[in-house]
């Protein structure tokens, strides 16, 4: 990225609808796809796109996220020139404040951006699972001579009312925002990925901060304000896999997507690797008598039982006679012999006792299982 781009990655979200998955960690730190955490996708996209400066805005329960990111070595961000900065809320002469919204979080770090003097600021979310070359977005943005370009993608009509919908003219210039409209005019949803000219953004962040009625959110305040004042705003149409994992069910579904041979999020693509912190575990062992069908297994697992359509994270023991169907099992779990697990998300460090039954194959429910409790959805 020749022209200077600084990425600001919003990673402070709680993700309350993920229930126990986020009881101790922020949503970007939630494990995904056998060995990753959700934030790995945005971070890997950034490093693969050649972005050399990235600020990570943290707030909600950041301990594990901080441990995971460290100095950014896994994503090649431990650099002398550029690199990664973790930007938590801080205190100043006027007292301490929490980040009150996405725009406010960036506003509070104007000093960081001023120091880097970027031409463009790319706003990213640490909550999304996708692979994107941000250079394409930048080139489009430059080509249109836009003040801001928003990445959008087509979503199914029946889901369109869950998203921020963007209406454009025939040249893809944005003419209207609709936040979660009951009757959407089209099905192009904002992906929460914005490429701003820094000068414009800086102006509007300062303006927004003075506005007492604002909740300091990009989607609700800053972008509509820019539209109102007739700034050049364009929509860039992204095609590919993208998921905002909102609920336990969609979390389970997007994990299961990886087992579908038609899935477009190809994790094996060497030209666009997804990086993560290395756990230094030995290979997985598949014992004699084990049955493994259409499943993903990660390092350090010891499989003696039966797996069908499941995703296993690391260091999981599946005892002989245990059966796991259509489930996501997070690290360090033990499934004891005779246990049968269907359609479940099993949280870290859980032991499923002998002969325990969870769910039925066709019951259309998702079970979130911890050592203490089972939630149904």
């Amino acid at each position, binding site marked *: 990225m020749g022209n200077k781009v600084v990425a600001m990655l919003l990673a402070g979200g709680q993700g309350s609808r993920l229930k126990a998955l986020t009881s101790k960690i922020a949503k970007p730190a939630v494990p995904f796809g056998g060995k990753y955490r959700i934030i790995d996708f945005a971070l890997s996209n950034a490093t693969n796109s050649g972005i050399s400066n990235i600020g990570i805005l943290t707030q909600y329960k950041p301990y594990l996220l901080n441990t995971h990111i460290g100095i950014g070595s896994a994503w090649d961000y431990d650099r002398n020139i550029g690199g990664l900065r973790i930007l938590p809320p801080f205190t100043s002469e006027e007292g301490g404040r929490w980040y009150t919204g996405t725009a406010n979080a960036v506003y509070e770090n104007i000093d960081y951006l001023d120091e880097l003097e970027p031409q463009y600021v790319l706003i990213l979310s640490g909550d999304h699972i996708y692979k994107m070359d941000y250079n394409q977005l930048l080139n489009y943005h430059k080509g249109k001579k836009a003040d801001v370009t928003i990445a959008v993608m087509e979503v199914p009509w029946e889901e369109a009312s869950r998203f921020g919908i963007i209406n454009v003219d025939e040249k893809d210039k944005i003419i209207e925002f609709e936040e979660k409209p009951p009757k959407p005019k089209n099905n192009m949803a904002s992906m929460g990925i914005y490429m701003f000219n820094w000068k414009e953004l800086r102006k509007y962040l300062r303006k927004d901060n003075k506005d007492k009625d604002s909740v300091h959110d990009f989607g609700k305040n800053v972008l509509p304000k820019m539209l109102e004042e007739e700034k050049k705003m364009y929509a860039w149409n992204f095609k590919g896999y993208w998921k905002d994992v909102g609920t336990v069910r969609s979390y389970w579904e997007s994990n299961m997507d990886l087992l579908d041979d038609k899935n477009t999020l190809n994790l094996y693509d060497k030209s666009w690797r997804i990086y993560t912190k290395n756990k230094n575990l030995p*290979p*997985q062992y*598949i014992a004699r008598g*084990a049955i493994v069908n259409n499943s993903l*297994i*990660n390092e350090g697992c010891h499989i003696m039982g039966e797996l069908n359509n499941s995703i296993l994270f690391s260091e999981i023991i599946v005892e002989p006679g245990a059966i796991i169907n259509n489930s996501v099992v997070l690290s360090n779990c033990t499934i004891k012999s005779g246990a049968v697990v269907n359609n479940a998300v099993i949280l870290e460090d859980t032991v499923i006792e002998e002969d325990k039954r969870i769910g039925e194959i066709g019951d259309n429910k998702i079970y979130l299982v911890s050592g203490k409790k089972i939630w149904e959805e």
Partner: protein
Amino acid sequence: MDRCLGIITTLERDSNFGGICKNRPSYMLPFGGRYRLIDFTISNMVNHGLRTIAVYTGEKIRSTMDHLGDGKPWDLNRRINGLFLYPPINDNHVGTHFGDIAQFYSTMEFFDRTREEYIFLSNPNIIAKLNIGDAFRFFIDTGADITLIYREQLDPDGNLINCDKIHVGEDNVFENLGVNLSTEKRFNHYIGMAFVKKDIFIKILKDSIEQGNTNYFKDAIILYKDKYKINTYEFKGHVETIRDLKSFYKANLNLLSKDISRELFFQGGAIYTKSKDEPSTLYTESSNVQNSLIANGCVIEGDVENSIVFRGVKIGKGAFIKNSVVMQKSVIEENAIVVNAVLDKQTFIGKGVNIGGSILAPYVVEKYQRIVKE
């Protein structure tokens, strides 16, 4: 343990490995699905608190440089101490000499400069999860100048012929060092690990060179055994001695035993290696895997039995792999059969190809080799 330097050196010949050591030293052989042999030696040192480690690399240095780099996976990329790599210099004032003494002597500055007072020597071709801390305490408490580590071995089949045989007297006193000819059912195997006081080590190097009576540190121990206080320490765990193709193959397959893999992979801390950022391994509907160790990044559609499969390997539908070691990024196409084989990195076994060796002499496919049906 920060009082002890770690020295890694091997005198193993690479010619006994049937083509898999053409471009790499034997201590760099892939092992256990995602490691190199030397990872076990370095990780065990690091896990026991050694902070300064020197590797005498031998001449085939490219794969060593690529793998060890600045030592980051082992936390050895330190401002103070850390990892030192010493390729051989054959063109100095001791140029007519061969053997490890000359190599050690050529790095005298390293021994002078480092603050550690003791040396822990280790041979990366021998894997043993020695509790270095316990052994070090023995070495210090007994006031020895040199402590040699051995393992009592039962070797009725003569698998360990030509290994170092150590003669141990009462109270662990060192008597002599020779070569095992398998004349006895049991023997004490010197596993290439030793503690030496640094000043004694330096003195032995200088004496050997000045007097010109030995080129090997092992010979010097025999030569000077009455001059210094030398004792022995018994190691009781599992030992793998990798000195030829057969022992390499067997050591890999031994990891399918739960007890051995537990000990080698987990005891005393994790084994670190260069990470490759591979995703999880996918087992499709048509796969059938039995008693095998599978690394990450593989896509398995065929049958695998009693085998070690390294990172990023693809095994096609109807393919059958048995008793084999399949290294990184190899591709085995549909309906190929691979039995009792060692497939080096990035080999390609085409559709319907059958290859097989015997358990005693595995079939070797060399790096980048492609085998296709005419």
